[in-house]
């Protein structure tokens, strides 16, 4: 590319530049030739001097005309022919023999020869340059090759030879130009290909960047999904807690009957498996909880023997309270049964034993009413019972749905541990009572309820009879509601929390 540019520039400046270039070359050549003439003269002088020095010592003296300047002479003789005085420069002279003078002349002749050679080289270089300028003119087309060749041939043979060579050169040079053009085209094509490669690389980078962004988006989505799953897992754990609590209640109700206990256990296992399938990621957790439950059962089996003495005390309390205490116990049983049914329906587990329980629940309710009516004909009590049921329903739903209760349980972990122990003791007592009576399971359940309520509400019966004696119904209703609601919440909460805590303690 640079060469082409140079050629173009030179072509533009040909008319003036070439002429000036030629003039400069001519000047240089003239100067060199004049210098060459000078040095040639010097060389000749030294040669003649050398010859004279070699022959001078042959004689002792020569008769000569001694020159005084270029215009006058005197007759005289040369003496001391072997003594020569030589000017070394700066007015310094050296006296030496003829042979020594000869060596000095040789040294100076060598210097002269070197100078001549250098000048010859310079002349050749500038002649070549002049030829080049002539070629440029021909290339530009200012002069016709044919005409120039003829003139040159007429002049001299050597010139013609050189010119013939020149004639061939222009033919080859344009070919070179074409070749250069082709090369330039190829280079351009290569550059285009390189550009394409760059574009492809950029596209690859862009794709890679796009892929990176897509991956980032996917990772973000995965994180969101994981967060959601963790939340679901926490809710599932709540469900598990409810299931475990329901299972415990069932076991307590079942008492000594082996068949009933087996069915209940099977139901619990199925529920746990369903929860595991729903939460694939949390397969290990329910297994651990199941193990903990087994441990609890074992402990329950060992304890009943110790608590025979405590049951005797509970019986005494029942006798003292009388009919009022029995009513409260029945209400609590109903609440528990309703909670169990709701949990089962929520899980969507349709089994025959569950249906039998559902069917039994309304029968139990009617039986409760019948028993109460038979035992006590007073209508006021019947009204109070219906209102208490509604309150219990509300409390159950709130407990199951909300998550705040879970947080509270976690906060009160240590305190509930004590409650757990107390509840376990109560359950053992119930089992002992069932074994000696030998009555139906439903009846056994009623007696069990009696025992629990007696322990918790000793101070309450003193206040209750006063209220019942009073004629106004309104003030008595809210008091009873408050009393009923408050004890239910703590009873259920500690049970659920107790399970988690027990599992943790066992792990530790």
């Amino acid at each position, binding site marked *: 590319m640079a060469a082409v540019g140079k050629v173009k520039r030179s072509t533009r400046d040909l008319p003036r530049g070439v002429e000036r270039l030629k003039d400069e070359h001519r000047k240089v050549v003239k100067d060199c030739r004049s210098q060459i003439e000078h040095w040639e003269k*010097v060389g000749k*002088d*030294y040669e*003649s*001097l050398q010859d*004279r*020095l070699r022959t*001078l010592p042959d004689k002792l003296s020569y008769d*000569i*005309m*001694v*020159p*005084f*300047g*270029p*215009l*006058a*002479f*005197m*007759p*005289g*003789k*040369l*003496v*001391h*022919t072997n*003594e*020569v*005085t*030589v*000017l070394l420069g700066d007015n310094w*002279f050296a006296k030496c023999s003829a042979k020594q*003078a000869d060596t000095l*002349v040789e040294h*100076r002749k060598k210097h002269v020869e070197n100078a001549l050679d250098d000048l010859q080289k310079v002349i050749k270089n500038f002649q070549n340059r002049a030829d080049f300028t002539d070629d440029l003119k021909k290339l530009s087309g200012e002069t016709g090759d044919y005409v120039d060749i003829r003139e040159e041939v007429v002049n001299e043979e050597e010139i013609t030879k050189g010119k013939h060579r020149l004639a061939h050169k222009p033919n080859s040079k344009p070919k070179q130009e074409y070749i250069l053009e082709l090369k330039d085209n190829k280079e351009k094509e290569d550059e285009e290909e390189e550009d394409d490669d760059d574009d492809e690389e950029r596209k690859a980078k862009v794709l890679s960047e796009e892929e990176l962004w897509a991956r980032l988006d996917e990772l973000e989505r995965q994180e969101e999904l994981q967060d959601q799953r963790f939340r679901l897992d926490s809710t599932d754990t709540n469900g598990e807690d409810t299931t475990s609590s329901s299972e415990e209640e069932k076991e307590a109700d079942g008492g000594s009957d082996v068949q009933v206990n087996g069915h209940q256990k099977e139901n619990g296992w199925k529920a746990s498996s369903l929860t595991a399938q729903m939460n694939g990621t949390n397969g290990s957790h329910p297994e651990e909880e199941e193990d903990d439950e087994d441990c609890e059962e074992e402990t329950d089996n060992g304890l009943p023997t110790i608590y025979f003495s405590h049951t005797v005390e509970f019986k005494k309390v029942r006798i003292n309270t009388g009919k009022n205490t029995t009513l409260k116990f029945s209400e609590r049983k109903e609440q528990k049964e309703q909670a169990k049914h709701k949990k089962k329906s929520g899980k969507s587990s349709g089994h025959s034993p569950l249906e039998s329980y559902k069917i039994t629940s309304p029968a139990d309710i009617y039986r409760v009413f019948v028993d109460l009516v038979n035992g006590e004909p007073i209508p006021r009590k019947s009204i109070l019972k219906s209102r208490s049921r509604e309150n219990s329903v509300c409390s159950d739903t709130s407990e199951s749905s909300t998550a705040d209760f879970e947080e509270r349980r976690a906060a009160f972990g240590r305190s509930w541990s004590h409650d757990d122990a107390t509840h376990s003791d109560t359950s053992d007592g119930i089992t002992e009572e069932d074994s000696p009576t030998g009555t139906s399971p439903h009846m056994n359940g009623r007696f069990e309820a009696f025992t629990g309520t007696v322990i918790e509400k000793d101070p309450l019966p003193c206040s209750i009879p006063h209220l019942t004696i009073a004629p106004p119904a309104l003030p008595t209703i809210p008091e009873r509601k408050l009393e009923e609601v408050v004890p239910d919440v703590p009873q259920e909460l500690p049970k659920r929390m107790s399970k988690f805590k027990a599992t943790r303690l066992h792990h530790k």
Partner: protein
Amino acid sequence: MTSGTSVINDKVLQYETFISEVLRRDLQKVLEQRDAVYEKIAQYLQLKNTIQSIQESGSKELKTDVDLGCNFYVQAHVPDASRIYVAVGYGFFVEFTHAEALKFIEKKTNQLTEYTEVLTKDAAKIKANIRMVLEGLRELQGLKDLPEDRRREVF
């Protein structure tokens, strides 16, 4: 008008060539000749000095160095320095005594000086001719000079 301009251009070229090829060349030749004459005068004066120094020394015998060329010198002995051969022109040499030689040199230098004066005058004439031709060219080309110059020309 076109023919007139072409004629004027041709005349201008002729005058310019006359100046460059004839007048300037003649001037150069005259000056070169004058320089040669001056050189000759210088040589004779130098010879005069040497002869005077020999007379003052008063010795007959003389020792000197002869240049063989390229500043290589050899001793020479002159037994009789009373006579000297002097070039009088056209390659002839005449034997003179010191006094005679001095007289000849004086005459020769005077003659050469006169010749140089002639050459100087010729050179001046040639310069004047060049000036005239340049003025003519100026008029032909329609160039004008300052009025002061015109007055000088009149005088």
